[in-house]
């Protein structure tokens, strides 16, 4: 399945719009990791504990959105975006969303 941030896909024609698809997750690391991260923030630089947390949440939200698109038999998700907000300290909330569409090869593309 094609996932693109653009509204159109070069070489393809959108023949059907199936509507919004989205995936959401809120993930946290364990408290010991949070303690480790506190010391990292004191010293500065990258905090791998939180990089990992955000990466895990991003992949899970993306997979949930793709599962929804698969259920609709979509060929692609266009206008894809990630959004984030804070619902709890030391937790990553990520929403992945886009528009599921059906495609046809553009004979002129």
């Amino acid at each position, binding site marked *: 399945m094609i996932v693109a941030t653009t509204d159109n896909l070069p070489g393809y024609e959108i023949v059907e719009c199936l509507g919004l698809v989205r995936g959401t997750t809120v*993930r946290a690391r*364990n408290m*010991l990791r949070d*303690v480790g991260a506190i010391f990292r923030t004191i010293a500065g630089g*990258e905090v*791998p504990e939180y*990089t*990992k947390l955000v*990466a*895990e*949440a991003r*992949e*899970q939200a993306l997979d949930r959105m793709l599962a929804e698109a698969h259920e609709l038999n979509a060929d692609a998700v266009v206008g894809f975006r990630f959004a984030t907000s804070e619902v709890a300290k030391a937790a990553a909330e990520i929403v992945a969303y886009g528009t599921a569409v059906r495609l046809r090869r553009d004979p002129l593309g």
Partner: protein
Amino acid sequence: MAYADGELSPAERAAFEARLAHEPGLGREVAQHRALAVLARRLAPLEPLDHEWRRLAADPMQRGALGFGWISLGIGVLGLAGLALWRFETNGEISLIERGLVLAVVLGAGALLVTAVRARVRTLPFDPYRNVER
């Protein structure tokens, strides 16, 4: 170069494409430039910190300090919490109701922690995202 990078205005682009139709050499030049741009992206520098993280993780001094830090911190925190709870619960000057309520809070929090840890341990093997690093 500006054409291959998509930096021309629509009018400039149309004019350039008209030239492309009649100048095969120019087309080859554009193709080469695009291939070079793709190659340059693939050759983007690797994470410079990766080898340093691995070296640090294997360093005996770093591992020893980390192990000592966690064990010492854990013993200290748990010991202090236990001691504080013991002193509080055995303090005759505090009413039985107050001591009972504090004990209920501690036991309740402990029970909730146990359920959360149990749930995580049970579901951990089925969590495909735990190996995502970045």
